């Protein structure tokens, strides 16, 4: 080390840099290596899962995605592995979740940034933090044992009222169980609310004070100020937040596995049981062998590809929105 060098010649002290500089280089390589670990894991996930799922892809071809039948143990003939029903369940439950979660999340974010008296802001943030901290399996437990049974009469009532109306009648069809698409969507909504709220809140808080002042100085009410100054500035960021929420909802496994009902089913009836890609994997993995296992891993591949795609898009949108905001503030 240069500091402890006792050499009387200052030039040799400076010349000592070689060994210590090596320490610097080793350290920077080591940190870079840990950073690259992220890329390595993502790459390995893709490679290993695709390789392991290949027997199922090979056997089914494109039908793996377009086939709605999932029959691992048929009485006669070959097993059929079609992911379409589960993809449908994933899509429907996630859409229901967003339908409920987005307005609520935007509302809470507005509450935190524009409305809340200072003494309520802390408690409101704590509620969101706690909502995020409750493990998904606990929401699932609550969903299957409490919410599902409690909602059956509500679903029945909705069916009785709207059953005869065109379109609505097919959405709100006959109720057989509290474990269905709708319950899965509602439980998912609770689980994605914290993430959508926290990102939306960050986006709202970057709206320049000057823009809000401009609207207020024109005699805008608070709501008109929000519509005129806050929303136009944050549209991109909110879209990104919603997509992140979508990614979470699609990948959520355990809560959905407990409350969606476990039926291979494509139906417009939101009160019918179904299944989602993630849920099927965890329900059936233990009893699977051979091509069946490969097919379940194949579901994982599809899920991975879709969530990564959505997340990359969402992150790019959020980053671009943030960069634009910072540019306009500077």
């Amino acid at each position, binding site marked *: 080390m240069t500091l402890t060098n006792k050499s009387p010649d200052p030039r040799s002290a400076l010349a000592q840099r070689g060994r210590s*500089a090596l320490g610097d280089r080793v350290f920077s390589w080591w940190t870079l290596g840990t950073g690259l670990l992220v890329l390595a894991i993502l790459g390995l*996930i893709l490679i290993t899962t695709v390789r392991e799922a290949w027997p199922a892809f090979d056997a089914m071809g494109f039908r793996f995605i377009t086939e709605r039948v999932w029959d691992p143990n048929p009485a006669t003939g070959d097993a059929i592995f079609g992911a379409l029903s589960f993809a449908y369940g994933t899509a429907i439950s996630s859409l229901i979740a967003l339908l409920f979660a987005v307005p609520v999340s935007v509302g809470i974010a507005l*509450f935190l940034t524009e409305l809340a008296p200072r003494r309520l802001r802390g408690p409101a943030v704590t509620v969101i933090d706690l*909502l995020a901290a409750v493990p998904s399996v606990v929401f699932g*437990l609550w969903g299957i044992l409490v919410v599902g049974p409690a909602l059956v009469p509500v679903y029945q009532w909705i069916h009785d009222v709207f059953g005869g109306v065109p379109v609505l009648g097919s959405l709100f069809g006959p109720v057989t169980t509290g474990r269905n698409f709708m319950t899965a969507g509602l439980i998912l909504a609770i689980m994605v609310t914290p993430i959508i709220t926290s990102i939306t809140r960050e986006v709202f808080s970057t709206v320049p004070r000057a823009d809000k002042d401009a609207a207020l100085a024109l005699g805008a009410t608070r709501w*008109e100020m929000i519509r005129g100054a806050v929303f136009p500035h944050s549209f991109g960021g909110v879209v990104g937040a919603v997509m992140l929420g979508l990614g979470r909802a699609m*990948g959520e496994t355990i809560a959905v596995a407990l409350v969606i009902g476990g039926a291979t089913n494509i139906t417009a009836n939101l009160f019918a049981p179904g299944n989602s890609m993630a849920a099927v994997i965890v329900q059936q993995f233990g009893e699977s062998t051979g091509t069946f296992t490969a097919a379940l891993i194949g579901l994982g591949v599809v*899920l991975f590809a879709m969530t990564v795609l959505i997340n990359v898009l969402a992150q790019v949108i959020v980053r671009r929105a943030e960069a634009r905001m910072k540019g306009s503030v500077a």
Partner: protein
Amino acid sequence: MTATASPATRSAAGAPDLTRAALSGRRRFTNHLATAAIWLAVLLAVVPLALVIYEVVAKGGGVMNMSFLTEDIPNSYRRDGGGMAPAIVGTLLITGAAALMAIPLGVFGAIYLNEYGKQRPLARVIRLMADVMTGVPSIVMGLFIYISWVLLVGQQTGFAGALALACLMLPVVIRSSEEMLRLVPDELRQASMALGARKWKTTLTVVLPAAISGITSGSLLAVARAAGETAPIIIVTGIVFSPNVNLFDGFNTALPAQIFRNASQPFEAAQDRAWGAALTLIVIVLGFTIIARLISSRFAIKER
């Protein structure tokens, strides 16, 4: 209302109505409606949280006692009694092992991003991909570890679960630690550099200690989240009914997996165990979360 010294003489520019009545009914209504909707949104978040915590405490509290925490899991769902000791041991060991792997690696990754990579293209890609990795479904991470570890060693183990949880924690630790490192003022780095310290020494002896409480708090939150992960545990650890403290040999289990398995049983004994396990898990998770909050709030005071 007091009169002004010299009221306006021009009629058109006279005193307008400044009371609330002057606001058109439609505008007033819309504003009130929006305000009410925002309050409703907050209520809609509070109600499920309150309900789920109430149910867990009420139902879980009913079965909670010393033997629940210390006894083995009955090997039949039907049977009354027994406890969750193996799952508690499993959760603590698996999550702890995952933290031991993920936190150091994550902190070094954060050091790369904030101290070396900064805004270079590679660092930006890693940053983006770390964010994307936080969105990878935990079930996929479970499949990944199953293929690349369980199939390799030929056995489901607690360590496989720890590997999966570590993969889930890693990006969270990286990103939260990077945020904390970014808060360290540049003056500190320059002061250390000016004393002739090498960059690696500056980073390890000055920058890291300055950010350590923030990093600890962020890491604890990641640990809390990981402790509640279920899907990978079910896929890679198998199941046991008596405690297994060896992570590298033999099956294991954890609280979330036990909640999942017992919740879908029609037997009351199993459902009771699920509630009890849920209460235990929530206490563990909230414990981590509260400790993290305490550390970060103390850190915030120091910052000021």
